């Protein structure tokens, strides 16, 4: 029985990873028609490196991810810290914070589009930053909250009893203790923003796009080694981010807390 379950699990993992491996392998294939292997080449990557429009889109993706990460990390951490106190309307508050994660992407995207439309704000990368900050705020709040749950509050209170102002207690005790959680939240936010397609697609307007919107318009109707190559680059970037986040989450907790 255990053997059968193990075999099944292995099969599931193969179906998860095999397509990605095939795609990466065929990004190095000489032939345009990716069904048959004809020989190794780096031509498709050379083509990408020469494509200036793609550089602009990569830069847009990074700008969008960076700015929404900074804003959502600050706001999301505040949201998580505030949720520790009890106050009137707290259940409404927690629902509000969790909502962007719960509703399908397209719902959030269209609602924001309706707002931008109602106040006649022209769509651009800037409006996309506002949209990305909104969904990332929730993810950061959830990650930081999880970290806070393992924290001993008495140390913070002790710091305040011993004469530290709430701000000092926060800076010297709370922040160092939750920093790995905050950083993990920030990396998650960056990754989600870097990979996002649906929210960007609806809120960026008709101007220049990001790598995911490029992949959408290229890859919807065809399969070519060049698209394999772009996809491989995006995949490698995501994997680099995961390695970073794993390194961060192993950072030992210093200065109070657990």
């Amino acid at each position: 029985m255990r053997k059968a379950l193990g075999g099944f699990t292995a099969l599931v993992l193969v179906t998860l990873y095999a397509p990605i491996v095939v795609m990466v392998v065929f990004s190095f294939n000489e032939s345009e028609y990716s069904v048959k292997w004809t020989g190794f080449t780096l031509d498709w990557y050379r083509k990408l490196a020469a494509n200036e429009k793609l550089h602009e889109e990569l830069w847009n993706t990074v700008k969008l991810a960076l700015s929404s990460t900074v804003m959502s990390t600050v706001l999301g951490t505040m949201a998580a810290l505030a949720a520790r106190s009890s106050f009137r309307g707290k259940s409404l508050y927690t629902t509000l914070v969790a909502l962007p994660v719960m509703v399908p992407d397209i719902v959030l995207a269209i609602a924001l589009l309706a707002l931008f439309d109602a106040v006649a704000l022209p769509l651009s990368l800037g409006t996309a930053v506002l949209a990305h900050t909104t969904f990332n705020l929730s993810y950061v709040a959830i990650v930081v909250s999880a970290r806070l749950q393992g924290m001993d509050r008495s140390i913070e209170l002790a710091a305040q009893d011993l004469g530290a102002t709430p701000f000092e207690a926060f800076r010297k005790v709370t922040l160092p203790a939750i920093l790995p959680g905050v950083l993990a939240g920030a990396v998650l936010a960056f990754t989600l923003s870097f990979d996002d397609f649906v929210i960007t697609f609806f809120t960026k307007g008709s101007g220049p796009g990001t790598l995911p919107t490029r992949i959408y318009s290229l890859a919807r109707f065809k399969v070519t080694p060049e698209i394999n190559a772009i996809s491989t680059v995006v995949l490698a970037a995501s994997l680099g981010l995961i390695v970073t986040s794993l390194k961060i989450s192993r950072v030992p907790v210093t200065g109070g807390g657990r």
Partner: protein
Amino acid sequence: MKKALPLLLPPTLWLTVFLVLPTAALAVSAFSKEGLAALLEPVTWFLFWKSFRIAVVSTAFCLAVSYPVAYFIAGCSPRWRNLLLFLVVLPFWTNLLVRTYALKVCMEPLGWLNTESAVVFALVQNFLPFMILPLYASIEKLPKRLLEASQDLGASPAVTFWKVTVPLTMPGIAAGCILVFIPVLGIFALPEFIHERTHLIGSQINLYFMKNRNAGAGSALTLVLMLFTIVLTWTYSRFRKSEGLV
């Protein structure tokens, strides 16, 4: 309350401006002549039904595939557990369109593209981590002595599974199903990659906004989708609370 206020204010303000107000704007746009007309169109309800049907089928397959996997992982040694869970979650960190495109690369030579079964396969494959993780969490917590007691009292492994294991892991099953069902219901882009002519509610909303320039109709469909999500989440959270009291 006083201490929490400086922390509470900025995120609440942000969510009010970029979540509550947008919802209000969405409702205003939906309650227009075009919006109400779209809700009276039979094609709207056909598409909601089709999206619902595909979401139910995908969630069911996801559950059927994930349960044995989660069960196996929960029985492994801690080292293997961590490795397997990592392998299950890893794809979630990469781009959805890239993964879907990779599937497309493999499906094309097989002649599987442009079928509904291929769309369901892609959906199941994509949402597996969302199902496996909550299932794993609840299977791992399963008290071993209850399973042993059931077998000692003469139940066959199958009876033990259906009468003890499944009921006790219901919270994980419910959490996994809701985490898969809701995003699949409003899915956009993934189905179009696999099946050019797949038309679900997400693609219809896109069509109204990007091609037909009919914001009222698009908003009306989005609002219905949103209300459906909220009702479902709310029902689920009530169900979970009653679980906690038992």
